[in-house]
C-alpha cells in the first residue's frame, strides 16, 4: 500500500496527498520517501493548482523518522542519503510552481512532520488541539530536515532556539500569531485551505523569499547572545552531543545562506546517529514507549475495577494524585482530617487548573470535567463502596497503620495503596486485619508531571492488590515499575544515596556549589545539595534517618545533615544551600553547619563525579541483589524517569555496561577504600555477574 496517496480533484486541479504509513503513527521511512516523491512528480506532471497534505490517521499527522528502520543495518552513507532525500523532497515542494498547504485536525506533527509544515508548506491550517514541535533532542537527535533554519522563519529566532533545545511540543494555539498558521475549527479546515490556495497562486515560499521578514526580529548580536546562552547551558554536561549539534546548526544559520545551512544540518546529523550518547537516548525512547508498557507483568483479570477511588491526605501529593485520576475519568473522593482542609485542597486544585486554562494549556471543558469528578469527605464511612484507597498521609508508620486500621474497619475489601516513599509494606501491613489488601503506590512529585509510578509488592500483598495498583497506575497514564519490598524500595533508596553522597563530598572538603556543578557536569538535572533545598530538607532528613537505621553499615547519616536540620536549614522557603534556589545564588552561611571529616582525602573532580554517578548506580545494583529490583529495564526506566539519573546514559545498567562491569566494580571498591565510604562497596550483583562471565550487555 502506498504511504502517500495522491488524489486529484479534476475541477479545481488541487491535489490532496494523504499520509498513512505502516504502524500506529505516521513516520518517515524509505517507503514514505519513495511514495512522497512519486506523488510530487505526479503533481508536477498534472500541473496542479495546489497541494493539500492531510493524514489518514486520527491522532498523527506525521511524527518524525522511523528510527527502528533507519537504525537497522545503518551506515553513515545510507543515513546521509536518507536525510538528504527528505530535504530534497521538502525543497522540491517549497520551490514548486504550485502552492502547498497542510491541514491538521487534532493531530500531531512532531520532528520531521513539523519540518514538512515548516519547509514544504506555504501555509498550515490546524484545529486548536493539534500539536507540533521539534522534539528531536528528546530522542538524542536534532532537527535535520531544515528545522533549525525553517522554524526561526516561522516563530522567530529566540523562540526557535528555545523550542529546539528543549524539544518542547506546543498546541496550535501557541502558533496562532505565526504568519504561516491559521487556527480554525475542524469543519472549516478544508474550505479555508482551498480558498487560500486559490488566492495564493504563484506564492513564493517564505524560506526562499529574500523579502520575507522573520517574526520577532532581533539584531545579529542579540541572536549570537541567544546562541551563546544556549550553548553555555548545554555544554555543562559534555555527554549530550545532540544539543551541541542543534546549537551549531542554529548558529550556522546566522551566517550561511539557507541552502548551505540546511546542508550543514546533514553533516552534523549523520555522525550523531552513531554516537553512543545519542544511541542511549534513542534506546531510552524505545524503553519508555515499547518496553515500559510491558513491564510490571500482572494478571489484569485479577485487578479490581477501580472506576472510583479515595485519596486520604489532601496535601500536595494527594491533590496531585486526585487531579490526575479525575482527569482520566476516575471519580475521586478526597479525604482529610477535617472538612475545611479538604475544601481548601479542592480550591487549590481549582486554582492550579484555572492557571492552566488561562495560559491556554488546558481547555475549560477539561478542567470542568476534572472538578466534576472530585468530591470531598472527612468521614471514613464514605469509603464503604470504594474499591481502591490511596493513602498519602504524613510519612509516619504509626499514623499510616492507624489510617489502615480505620479504612479496613469501614471497608475491609478495599485495596489499600500506600503512597509512602520509604516505609516497607511489611511494616505497614503488620498486624492489619487483611494484610493481603495492602500494596504500595509510590508517586513522584509533582504527580501531574512526573511519568513514573513505583508499585511495591509487599510480602503479604495479594496478586489482586498488585494487579489493581498496576492497572490503576496505567489508567492514570503512568509508566509503572513493579518492585519488591524494602526500606526506600528502589527509587527512594537509590536517590537517597545520591543526596547523602553529596553531603559526604562536602564533608570531605568540596564546596557544596562545586558538588552541584560537578553533578550537572555528570548529567544530573539537579545537584544533590540543590535537591536538598528544593525537595525539602525535612523530608530528606527523616528519610535518611530511617534509611540509616535500616542500612546502618552503608547509609549512615552524615553529621552535617543532622546539624543543618537542627539549625533549620531545610529549604522549601527556609534557608538551605542557596539564597534563591531558582537563580542558584549560594548561601555561604550554610558552611558554619558543615562538619569536615578529619584527615579525609579530598576527592578530585573525576572522583567526585564517579562518587555521585557510580554511587547511585551501585545502590541500584544493591536493589537487584536484594530482590527489590527484578530486571534491568525497570532499573533504567525508574532511575531516569523517577530520580534524575542522567538520561544521556540511559540508566545505571546501560552506564555500567558501557563502562564494563569489572572496571566499575574495581572503581567502586577503590573509591570506597580511599574515601572510607562503605556505601560505595560494590553490590554482590557485580560478583554474581562477574562469576557468570558477563562484563557488558546488561541492557
Amino acid at each position: 500500500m502506498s504511504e502517500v496517496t495522491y488524489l486529484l480533484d479534476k475541477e479545481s486541479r488541487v491535489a490532496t496527498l494523504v499520509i498513512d504509513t505502516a504502524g500506529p503513527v505516521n513516520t518517515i521511512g524509505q517507503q514514505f520517501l519513495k511514495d512522497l516523491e512519486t506523488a510530487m512528480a505526479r503533481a508536477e506532471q498534472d500541473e496542479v493548482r495546489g497541494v493539500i497534505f492531510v493524514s489518514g490517521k486520527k491522532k498523527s499527522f506525521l511524527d518524525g523518522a522511523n528510527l527502528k528502520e533507519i537504525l537497522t543495518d545503518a551506515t553513515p552513507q545510507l543515513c546521509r542519503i536518507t536525510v538528504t532525500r527528505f530535504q530534497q523532497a521538502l525543497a522540491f515542494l517549497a520551490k514548486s510552481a504550485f502552492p502547498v498547504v497542510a491541514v491538521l485536525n487534532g493531530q500531531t506533527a512532531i520532528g520531521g512532520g513539523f519540518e514538512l509544515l515548516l519547509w514544504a508548506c506555504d501555509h498550515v491550517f490546524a484545529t486548536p488541539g493539534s500539536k507540533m514541535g521539534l522534539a528531536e533532542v528528546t530522542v538524542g537527535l536534532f532537527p535535520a530536515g531544515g528545522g533549525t533554519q525553517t522554524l526561526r522563519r516561522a516563530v522567530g529566532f529566540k523562540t526557535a532556539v528555545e523550542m529546539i533545545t528543549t524539544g518542547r511540543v506546543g498546541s496550535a494555539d501557541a502558533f496562532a500569531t505565526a504568519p504561516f498558521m491559521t487556527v480554525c475549527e475542524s469543519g472549516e479546515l478544508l474550505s479555508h485551505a482551498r480558498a487560500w490556495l486559490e488566492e495564493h497562486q504563484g506564492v513564493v515560499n517564505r524560506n526562499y523569499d529574500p523579502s520575507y521578514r522573520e517574526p520577532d526580529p532581533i539584531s545579529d548580536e542579540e541572536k549570537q547572545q541567544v546562541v551563546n546562552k544556549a550553548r553555555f547551558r548545554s555544554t555543562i554536561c559534555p555527554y549530550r552531543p545532540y544539543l551541541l549539534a542543534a546549537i551549531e546548526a542554529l548558529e550556522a544559520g546566522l551566517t550561511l545562506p539557507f541552502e548551505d545551512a540546511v546542508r550543514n544540518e546533514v553533516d552534523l546529523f549523520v555522525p550523531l546517529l552513531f554516537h553512543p550518547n545519542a544511541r542511549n537516548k534513542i534506546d531510552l525512547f524505545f524503553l519508555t514507549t515499547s518496553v515500559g508498557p510491558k513491564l510490571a507483568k500482572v494478571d489484569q483479570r485479577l485487578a479490581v475495577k477501580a472506576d472510583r477511588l479515595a485519596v486520604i491526605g489532601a496535601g500536595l501529593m494527594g491533590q496531585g494524585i486526585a487531579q490526575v485520576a479525575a482527569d482520566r475519568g476516575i471519580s475521586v473522593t478526597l479525604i482529610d482530617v477535617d472538612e475545611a482542609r479538604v475544601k481548601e485542597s479542592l480550591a487549590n486544585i481549582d486554582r492550579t487548573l484555572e492557571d492552566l486554562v488561562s495560559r491556554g494549556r488546558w481547555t475549560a471543558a477539561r478542567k470542568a470535567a476534572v472538578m466534576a469528578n472530585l468530591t470531598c469527605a472527612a468521614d471514613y464511612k464514605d469509603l464503604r463502596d470504594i474499591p481502591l484507597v490511596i493513602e498519602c498521609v504524613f510519612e509516619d508508620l504509626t499514623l499510616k497503620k492507624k489510617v489502615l486500621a480505620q479504612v479496613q474497619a469501614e471497608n475491609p475489601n478495599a485495596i489499600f495503596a500506600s503512597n509512602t516513599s520509604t516505609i516497607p509494606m511489611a511494616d505497614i501491613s503488620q498486624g492489619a486485619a487483611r494484610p493481603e489488601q495492602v500494596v504500595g503506590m509510590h508517586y513522584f512529585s509533582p504527580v501531574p508531571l512526573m511519568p513514573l509510578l513505583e508499585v511495591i509488592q509487599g510480602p503479604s500483598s495479594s496478586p489482586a492488590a498488585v494487579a489493581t495498583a498496576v492497572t490503576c497506575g496505567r489508567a492514570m497514564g503512568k509508566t509503572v515499575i513493579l518492585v519488591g519490598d524494602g526500606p526506600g524500595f528502589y527509587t527512594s533508596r537509590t536517590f537517597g544515596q545520591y543526596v547523602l553522597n553529596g553531603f559526604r563530598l562536602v564533608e570531605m572538603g568540596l564546596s557544596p556549589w562545586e558538588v552541584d556543578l560537578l553533578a550537572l557536569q555528570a548529567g544530573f538535572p539537579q545537584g544533590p545539595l540543590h535537591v536538598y533545598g528544593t525537595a525539602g530538607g525535612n523530608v530528606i532528613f527523616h528519610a535518611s534517618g530511617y534509611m540509616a537505621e535500616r542500612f546502618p553499615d552503608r547509609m549512615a547519616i552524615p553529621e552535617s545533615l543532622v546539624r543543618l536540620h537542627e539549625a533549620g536549614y531545610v529549604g522549601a522557603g527556609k534557608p538551605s544551600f542557596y539564597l534563591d534556589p531558582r537563580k542558584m545564588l549560594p548561601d555561604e552561611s550554610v558552611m558554619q553547619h558543615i562538619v569536615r571529616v578529619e584527615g579525609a582525602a579530598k576527592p578530585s573532580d573525576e572522583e567526585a563525579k564517579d562518587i555521585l554517578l557510580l554511587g547511585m548506580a551501585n545502590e541500584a545494583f544493591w536493589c537487584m541483589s536484594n530482590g527489590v529490583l527484578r530486571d534491568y529495564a525497570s532499573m533504567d526506566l525508574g532511575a531516569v524517569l523517577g530520580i534524575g539519573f542522567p538520561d544521556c546514559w540511559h540508566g545505571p545498567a546501560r552506564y555500567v555496561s558501557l563502562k564494563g562491569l569489572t572496571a566499575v566494580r574495581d572503581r567502586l571498591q577503590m573509591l570506597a577504600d580511599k574515601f572510607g565510604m562503605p556505601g560505595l562497596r560494590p553490590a554482590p550483583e557485580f560478583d554474581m555477574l562477574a562469576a557468570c562471565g558477563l562484563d557488558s550487555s546488561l541492557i
Partner: protein
Amino acid sequence: MDNEFVIVGAKRTPFGKYLGSLSEMEPLDLAVHAGRAALSAQGKDLSGEIDQIFVGNCIPGSFEGASVTGRQIGLKLGVDRFTITVDTACCSPLTALRLALWGLRLGELSTALVIGVESMSRVPHSSRELRSGVRIGEVKLKDWIFPITYPGYNSVAVDASDGAVKYDVPKNMLDAWSMACHRKWANAREAGKFDDELAPIMATKGRERFLFAADESPRPEGTLAAIQQLPLIFGSKTTTAGNAPGLNDGASAVVIMTASKARALGLEPLGTVVEASGETDMPYGISWIPALTIKKVLEKAGLSLDRCDLIEINEAFAAMPLVSTKILADGDRDRWFELLKKTNVNGGAIAMGHPVGASGLRILMTMMYELRRRGGGTGVAAICGGLTQGEAVLLKA
C-alpha cells in the same frame, strides 16, 4: 596391554539454528561430514584403522530410514565395520565414547570412531492414528521435540527450573549466565578459538548452496534485559527461551585409539581420555546429575576437582551448569563463583546450540582444544540426559 587412550581427531560441523542453514541437510550427511573430518584431521585418512564405530543419536526419526542409523553412516563413510547406535538421550555420544573406551580397555579394539548427530529441524510430526484409518474427526500430529518430555514425567524445562529453585539459583542468575554465554562465544570466536574443532560444510537450502562455517545460534548483540522480559515456558518457574538453548542441527566426531597405535602411526595425541562414567538419579534430577556424574568420575580416577583446570557442563538449560557447580562447591558461594569462572569458558549450548545427540562430543572437544591452547591440563566434561542419566569424561591434554 595398552592402558592409555588418546584422541587423534575431533571435529564437528558448525551448529545450525532451528529451521536454519542445515535444516534441509540430511542428518546422515552431517554425520558423514563430521566423521570424515575427524578421520582426516591429522592429514592422513584413518578410515582403514577403524575397528568399530559408535554413534549417538536421540531422534532417529529425523533420518530417512529410522533404524541402524549408525550403520548407514558407517557405510556412507566407506567403513565397513561393526557399528553400534546408542540412545541415552543427550548422553548418547558420550555413552558411545564410553562403549569405545570399554572395547579399547578390553583390548578388543585399538581404534574407534565415535559420532554424535542430531537434526532437530528434520524431526517429522507424526501420528499413530493414521495406520488404522481415521473414521471421523481431526487427526492430531505429535511433535517429538515440543515439548521434550516423556510419558508420565514433567517436561525437562520444568525439572530444570525446579532444580534451580531447589538449589536457590535465582532466575536473574540463570539469565545472566545465558547472556554471558553469548558474549563468551563471541569473544572466543573473535580469537579464532573454534577453528580447531569446526569443519565447515557445503550446505544446501532451497536453491542456495553455500559454505556453512560458523555456529548460527549465538546472539551476542542481545542484552540481559531483553532475556529477562521473555515469558516463562511450559509452566516452569524460571525457564524461558532465553536461558535454554535452541533446537539445533549438527554432528560431531572423535577418533580414539591406543597411545601405542598413535605413536606407531605418527599421530599427535590431542588429548587423553583418563576416565568416563555414567550415573543416574531420580527422574526429576536432570539439573544436578552432571554434578553427581562428575563426582563419580573423579572418584573413580582418584582425582579432586581442584586438579581440574576446566569444567564443561552442557547447557541443556542454564540451570545445569549453575546448579551442578553449586553442588560441587558444597554450596559455598566463593568456591562456587571460582568454579563458575572455569566452567564453559568459551560459551555453551545456550549460545552455540544443542543438537541433542551431538553436544556431548562438542563439549569434550571444545574443552580439549582450550586445554591445549592453555599449554595442557586436566578437564572434566559432563552432560545430562532425559529421565536423569549423566555422562562425564575426564580428559588430560
